[in-house]
């Protein structure tokens, strides 16, 4: 009986702490990205509409490589050098299915305020003290270019 309780206590401590990185050697299973499940499952996926994203400057691309690629990867596929260590994988910025359910404003806020502040995983850091609002707007446009998708 006590051992069950201890286990329960153990897991709950683990859960509160391991909000970002896996806090146990055994934990290989990773939480799925939270809201993908909300995306309606259609029997066939329609061909992506051709959308014309806002022009993206070289500075914005460099900013993405400099900071964001650490987790989201060089091509934005979510396979950066930290990806395997994180409990919640970095969002794949080339996939439309999730990103088209988010508004540009929501992406802006996630980047500026960080995952924790907008109900996303805390391993997405806040960039509001590092990047100017205009830089962040540029990054949102770049993500729209990567996913070939528009905001909801």
């Amino acid at each position, binding site marked *: 009986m006590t051992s069950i309780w201890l286990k329960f206590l153990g897991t709950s*401590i*683990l859960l*509160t*702490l*391991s*909000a*970002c*990185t*896996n*806090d*146990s*050697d055994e934990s290989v299973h990773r939480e799925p990205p939270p809201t993908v499940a909300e995306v309606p499952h259609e029997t066939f996926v329609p061909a992506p509409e051709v959308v014309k994203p806002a022009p993206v400057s070289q500075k914005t691309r460099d900013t993405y*490589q*400099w*900071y964001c*690629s*650490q*987790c989201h990867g*060089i091509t934005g596929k979510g396979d*950066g*050098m*930290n990806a395997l*260590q*994180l409990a919640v994988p970095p969002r794949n910025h080339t996939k439309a299915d999730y990103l088209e359910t988010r508004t540009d404003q929501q992406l802006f806020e996630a980047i500026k305020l*960080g*995952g*924790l502040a907008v109900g996303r995983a*805390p*391993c*997405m*850091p*806040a*960039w509001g*003290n*590092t990047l100017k609002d205009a830089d962040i707007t540029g990054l949102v446009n770049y993500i729209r270019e990567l996913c070939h998708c528009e905001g909801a």
Partner: protein
Amino acid sequence: MTLYRLFICVLFFWATNAHADISLLKENHCDQCHRLSSGDKEQNLAPDLFYAGEKFQEPWLREFLRNPHIIRLNGYSGRMDFPKAITPQPHPSLPEKVADEVADVLLTLKLLEPETPINFGEPLSKGKKVRAKILFERNFSCSACHKGVNLAGKPHGGESGPSLFNAGARLQPQWIFNWLQSPEKYRSKGRMPRFDLDQETAIKLVQYIMTLKKENMK
């Protein structure tokens, strides 16, 4: 009189300027990769050493120069090709005597002398440590980029930042504090996000990092 003044000037220059000593580092080719003075042109191959006396704990530094180990698992973040992840090469090691002389020079290299050094107090109690761990792992995403320690006492966390697994034995608390509050004083542009931390939170994070010591781990 003027001659006397000149003498004082020269003496002052000599005493505060480590250039004479830096030649020992150059003899050992440290400048091939590292910047040894803040005026050196950025080459971004290896972390800067011109504030080594402020950054590292002496015993760690002496040991590292003799028996180097890897700290940045994907190479140095200043390199342009860093996002591709660089397989780190083993660091050159020095014979004991040279290592100690080199360490003596490195320990004189300082950039900022804190106006009011902070008292980081006693090592954290267990309860405070758990709360500070939450700051490190959750509130500020530090562990997404840095190796810290998990509940089993093993290294865990991201790999783009230098490993902090043994930072409590490697780094000086005041330097960590300065880095968190004003990284631009040390490096014009890093890849770590800036945090707008109040002093109390910054101190808690420093205190937490200081608990990360290999010798404390299971």
